């Protein structure tokens, strides 16, 4: 079963594919073809349909993405060559993709599976702060996320320092920090009584060497855990990323593809972002060789994906994948506002709602523009996932979700450029007891009630 799909073929093509300058790949190969498929398939963003109910739009986005990827491929910056595939190879990989995996081990293991549009099954919920933290906060912050009942898997915060020394990519302290990250995260999982929970690691490791250093079935990253092979914007990889891919598969752990097309970047607007985002999922299967994707399109200036343009793109990408592939993907929210603000909870709710009804699993949630150390708590992820699970179990349709999403988005869309940064983890949580403070708990309850009044259905 796939993945991996013929690793040697991919590596060889990275060294023998058609050669071109990186700038030409972007401006003369990717951009013209992207414009061409947007025109050909008449893909058009509609602000009134944040969650479109039109199946033909989803299928057109899929066809546009496939056509784009078949012609453009993936650029390897280490060799200045394009890795190309033909359609039969992509079909072979997709037909042999199982569409479900059991992640984690023992009583804490959970099934991650391909979801359909308006799927009634609960999404897999991965809780993640997606941000850096102080060294002394690593364990309490990890435990705060790990103890959340809705969390099927968790990704830890990222260390900036180890033993008081700065962690710099490629330097020896990165290896020390990455090993410490893996060890402390596992310890945190045991302390909350979930030693077998699926752990996605090691965010502290940017380099291939540091990732490889953290693979150890006893104290580090296990075979039941997940690791990431990222991409370079847009549709690019390098040897360091391919080194990780080879190592993860030979080690035997799960592999995720980490992909975030930039709205306003080479993708252009909502239409291009949705098509490139869908194409990234094909690349994720063929080049990153991933069992699942973490998908986080984001606004190039404001680092969020919770406005209409971005949510529309998320919806059509997931609908395209749900209808045309067996692929598994987790939709990663990016909120502009920070913890302990009503706005971040609305943003989280909108992201969870739109993603799940469109066929996604959840990875929640980067907040405060994904920029500020210690500025994330599990409360934001909890809101997104409570809404997402409610969407699935209530069986609401896309048209109903669209109306709800517009109501929620209208509460914050005008504030997005100047969104409040909120508070830090230690300002929101009692870090000894690892519990949210009264202020945030009350705010959460209040916003949840407001959402309920708008028509959002919760599972409890």
């Amino acid at each position, binding site marked *: 079963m796939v993945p991996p799909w013929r690793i040697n073929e991919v590596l060889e093509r990275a060294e023998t594919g058609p050669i071109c300058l990186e700038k030409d790949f*972007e*401006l003369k190969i990717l*951009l013209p073809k992207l*414009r061409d498929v947007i025109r050909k398939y008449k893909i058009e963003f509609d602000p009134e349909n944040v969650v479109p109910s039109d199946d033909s739009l989803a299928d057109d986005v899929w066809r546009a993405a496939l056509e784009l990827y078949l012609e453009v491929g993936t650029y390897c*910056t280490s060799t200045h060559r394009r890795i190309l595939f033909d359609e039969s190879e992509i079909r072979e990989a997709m037909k042999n993709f199982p569409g479900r995996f059991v992640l984690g081990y023992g009583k804490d293991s959970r099934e991650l599976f391909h979801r359909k549009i308006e799927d009634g099954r609960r999404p897999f919920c991965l809780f993640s702060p997606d941000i*850096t933290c102080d060294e002394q906060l690593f364990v309490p912050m990890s435990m705060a996320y790990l103890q959340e009942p809705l969390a099927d898997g968790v990704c830890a915060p*990222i260390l*900036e320092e180890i033993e008081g020394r*700065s*962690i*710099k*990519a*490629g330097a020896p302290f*990165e290896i020390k920090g990455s090993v410490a990250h893996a060890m402390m995260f596992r310890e945190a999982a045991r302390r909350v009584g979930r030693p077998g929970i699926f752990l996605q690691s090691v965010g*502290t*490791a*940017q*380099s291939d060497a540091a990732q490889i250093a953290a693979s150890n079935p006893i104290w580090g990253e296990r075979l039941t855990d997940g690791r990431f092979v990222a991409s*370079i*914007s847009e549709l690019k990889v*390098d040897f*360091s990323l391919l080194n990780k891919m080879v190592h993860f598969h030979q080690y035997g752990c799960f592999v995720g593809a980490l992909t975030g097309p*930039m709205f*306003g*970047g*080479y*993708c*252009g*607007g909502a239409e291009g972002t949705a098509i490139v985002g869908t194409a990234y999922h094909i690349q994720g299967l063929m080049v990153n060789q991933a069992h699942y994707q973490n998908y986080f399109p984001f606004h*190039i*200036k404001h*680092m969020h994906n919770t406005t209409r343009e971005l949510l529309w793109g998320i919806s059509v990408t997931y609908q395209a994948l749900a209808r045309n592939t067996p692929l598994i993907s987790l939709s990663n929210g990016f909120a502009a506002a920070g913890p302990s603000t009503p706005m971040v909870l609305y943003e989280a709710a909108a992201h969870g709602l739109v993603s799940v009804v469109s066929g996604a699993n959840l990875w929640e949630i980067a907040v405060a523009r*994904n*920029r*500020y150390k210690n500025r994330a708590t599990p409360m934001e992820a909890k809101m997104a996932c409570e809404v997402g699970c409610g969407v699935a179990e209530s069986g609401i349709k896309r048209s109903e979700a669209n109306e709800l999403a517009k109501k929620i988005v209208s509460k914050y869309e005008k504030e997005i450029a100047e969104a409040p940064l909120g508070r830090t983890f230690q300002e929101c949580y009692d870090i000894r007891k690892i519990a949210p403070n009264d202020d945030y708990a009350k705010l959460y309850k209040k916003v949840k009630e407001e959402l309920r009044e708008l028509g959002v259905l919760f599972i409890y």
Partner: protein
Amino acid sequence: MSLETLNERLKKFVISGDEEAAEKTASEILKAGMDPLEVIEKSLSPTMRLVGEKFEKGEYYVPELLCAAAAMEAATRVLTAEMKGESKEKLKAKKIGRVVVGTVSGDIHDIGKNILALLLEVNGFDTYDLGKDVDSMKFIEKAVEVQADIIALSALMTTTKPAQKEVIDFLNEMGLRDKYTVMVGGAPTSKEWAEEIGADGWAETAERGVRLAQTLIRDR
């Protein structure tokens, strides 16, 4: 074709990002006997500034910006090739400052840095783009070589932003800190981070980076 029409055509091709047509029109302009310096100053630069403004307002995205820049570069190449020494000096003198820009060591991301370099150029700076994954010492070597005013350091990963500090540490230890203004930016950076490492300024977006560079140059 009248000079006015040629000029208008050149502007149109820059805005639409038609590199080939812009290059061809620039040749025709030269053949028609127009002063290349005047064309650059009165047509090309204001047109590119307009494109930059549209990007800032969100009316244009990166593809439009990059294609317009490529068209402008092609036209400028043709126009400056025939330029006399005096005109070249005048063109150089119009620049408001020299900026060495790059993505720091270990970091392979460059979209933000590319936009900043482009917008700085459009707004009258002389920019020296060192690319991505640039060794910390290379920034300093280049700044010394071109007598830069500003060193602009981009980082997209939390684990690569310490390299911004490394450049500042190098400058301090080499006794060069006072010679250069250092600005930092990129997804994981913040005002607090800039203050912590002793940078002179931080900008959240490329557009704000241009404003910051203008302020820093004015205050030097």
